[in-house]
């Protein structure tokens, strides 16, 4: 084969953090040692033991560094797995066996490290208990770290120059360590857009795409690559034309982003004076400063599940209070809506019970009502953070009124507890429910009378309404935000849900989709809660339209009979009104 220009290759993944990056690939492979067994002479035994001890010392030094950095970036709680890894390096029972065997059997250190540690690894993998199986990964990580240090290989975390990291999988800790370099973007084969690494990339403002099939086999270090974190496209060896197009797109984005900066302090108000509350979705404390920079009107959804990440037990009332209090203080005088633990489904803390269909199973408020002590801990912690009256409670996965009423009883009980302890809280703390199950949507009027606000969760709502698993590649095309049934459903929720003092908002992905903004305003949505990155763009759209015009758009869309028709109509509308907003 002749050495002509390499073939251009376009791949698709899940956009995890926005932005466009163009640059050379750095292919990151976790060190996978190949072990060769050799016999050593009796005179070399002590030398071999010393070699192992040095490798252990180096491994320890590395882990302490990772732990420090993780604590700075992720907080103490989420860094605990590294602490356990450190303890493993000091396990004298394990290493005494290894030293003893080394002296008696006289083989190289690598052989015994692998042989002994794999024994435990196999035992842990054979367990029925999911936590134990997950811990087995920690063990493997430690094993690989020791083996790499035995080979005196350095941990690759320093890269010369600017690169786009391409890898099979990137642990949050690796993303963290890499971010100390000039990283332009992350591309991984596995991971979801809500994985910890994705959140981290967004907080660090580094573009990222996850779920790109086989990318680590197709890309090579120093290959030129384009990463479009807005729509999830990557192009390896781009042709000059494509390169030009993306350079132009990148410039457009930059220019557009600059026009957004002056909007920060302005409200999300239409040209004819209709005010919308535009808040941000927050998952990590690290994002608090960022949402202020983006000009969000408080927090419309704080996902407390991030407190459970990497944890084995529910955080105590005191631990939770610490976090909620910092959030309340950070956004004051604006508001923050704290959603109670939304566990089950595909999220965290996998329960010991295996469910055939977890999305139709034990999740959200159902779990919490079955675990009243855990629920009370959380409610008390939220109440305690509400003393300045800028906190509200949001319940996930509500399907009937009874769940709301039971929760209200628990809130009353939590208030009594705090009164007895003489702790201040907001007596009239607001309560809202997520509308993400068709049953809740259909009874939005009942729910609306029972609570202070409704917040539509579009991801689950669409999935349940259209009977499409968004994670299933075979049918994911059928997951349509603009399906006429979805639009009608939204209309119904907003119309019926709104009561005298009850407002209706949306915290799902659709709220942050610029293509949907005019339509949603026209349907009468009172509040948008969007990913921090989308705030300025959505604000710009709202500030450039008339409410009357948006109502007209919504009425037209409601008459359309296919997602294609609706999309085409909205795309043309956006192109006409906002030629500088990139719509895919």
């Amino acid at each position, binding site marked *: 084969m002749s050495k002509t220009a390499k073939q251009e290759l376009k791949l698709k993944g899940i956009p995890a953090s926005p932005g466009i990056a163009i640059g050379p690939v750095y292919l990151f492979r976790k060190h996978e040692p190949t072990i060769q067994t050799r016999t050593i002479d009796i005179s070399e035994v002590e030398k071999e033991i010393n070699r192992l001890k040095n490798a252990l010392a180096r491994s320890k030094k590395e882990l302490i560094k990772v732990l420090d950095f993780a604590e700075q970036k992720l907080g103490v709680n989420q860094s605990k797995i590294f602490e356990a890894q450190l303890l*493993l390096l000091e396990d004298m*029972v*394990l290493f005494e066996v290894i030293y003893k065997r080394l002296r008696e059997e006289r083989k190289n250190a690598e052989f015994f490290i692998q042989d002994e540690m794999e024994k435990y690894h196999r035992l842990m993998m054979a367990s029925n208990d999911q936590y134990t199986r997950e811990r087995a990964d920690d063990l493997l990580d430690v094993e690989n770290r020791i083996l790499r240090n035995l080979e005196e290989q350095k941990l690759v975390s320093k890269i010369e120059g600017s690169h786009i990291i391409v890898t099979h999988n990137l642990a949050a800790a690796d993303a963290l360590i890499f971010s100390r370099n000039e990283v332009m973007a992350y591309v991984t084969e596995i991971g979801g857009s809500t994985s910890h690494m994705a959140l981290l990339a967004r907080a660090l403002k580094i573009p990222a795409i996850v779920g790109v099939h086989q990318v680590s086999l197709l890309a090579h270090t120093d290959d030129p690559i384009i990463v479009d974190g807005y729509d999830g496209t990557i192009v390896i060896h781009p042709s000059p034309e494509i390169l030009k197009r993306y350079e132009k797109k990148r410039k457009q984005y930059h220019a557009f982003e600059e026009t957004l900066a002056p909007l920060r302090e302005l409200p999300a108000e239409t040209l004819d004076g209709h005010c919308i509350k535009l808040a941000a979705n927050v998952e990590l404390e690290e994002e608090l400063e960022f949402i202020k920079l983006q000009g969000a009107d408080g927090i419309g959804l704080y996902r407390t599940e991030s407190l459970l990440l990497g944890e084995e037990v529910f955080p105590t009332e005191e631990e939770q209070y610490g976090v909620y209090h910092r959030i309340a203080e950070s956004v004051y005088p604006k508001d923050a809506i704290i959603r109670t633990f939304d566990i089950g489904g595909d999220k965290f803390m996998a329960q010991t019970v295996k469910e055939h269909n977890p999305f139709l199973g034990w999740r959200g408020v159902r779990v919490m009502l079955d675990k009243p002590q855990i629920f009370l801990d959380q409610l008390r912690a939220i109440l305690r953070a509400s003393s300045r009256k800028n906190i509200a409670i949001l319940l996930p996965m509500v399907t009937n009124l009874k769940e709301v009423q039971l929760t209200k009883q628990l809130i009353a009980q939590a208030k009594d507890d705090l009164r007895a302890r003489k702790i201040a809280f907001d007596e009239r703390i607001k309560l809202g429910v997520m509308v993400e199950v068709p049953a809740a949507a259909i009874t939005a009027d009942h729910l609306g009378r029972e609570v202070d606000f409704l917040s539509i969760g579009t991801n689950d709502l669409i999935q349940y309404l259209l009977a499409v698993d968004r994670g299933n590649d075979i049918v994911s095309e059928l997951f349509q935000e603009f399906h006429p049934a979805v639009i009608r459903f939204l209309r119904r929720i907003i119309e019926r849900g709104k009561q005298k003092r009850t407002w209706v908002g949306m915290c799902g992905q659709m709220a942050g989709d610029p293509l949907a903004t005019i339509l949603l305003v026209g349907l009468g949505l009172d509040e948008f809660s969007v990913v921090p990155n989308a705030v300025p763009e959505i604000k710009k759209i709202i500030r450039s339209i008339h409410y009357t015009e948006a109502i007209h758009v919504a009425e037209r869309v409601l008459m359309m009979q296919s997602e294609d028709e609706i999309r085409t109509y909205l795309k043309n509308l956006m192109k006409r009104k906002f030629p500088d907003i990139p719509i895919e």
Partner: protein
Amino acid sequence: MIEREVTIRNRTGLHTRPAASIVKLAAKFRSDFFIEKDGFQINGKSIIGVMTLAAEQGSKLLIRFNGPDEEEAYHAMIKLFDSGFGEPI
């Protein structure tokens, strides 16, 4: 030698943090310390061993001390187990 059956009381069982607490406490004593579960015995001073036990909430374990300060070690360890490792029960 002292031995007794104990029950894992905390909700999530014998995972990393409790395992670390056990190992750290056991290290303070000179006596040998073993934990047995379903006939499988591990050295209680080894985190890798304790992690391998995979003892869930409600599991019954046999703990065994042997050495000069076994009495003291035994009482301290029972206290730790009974407290559910200071975690939610």
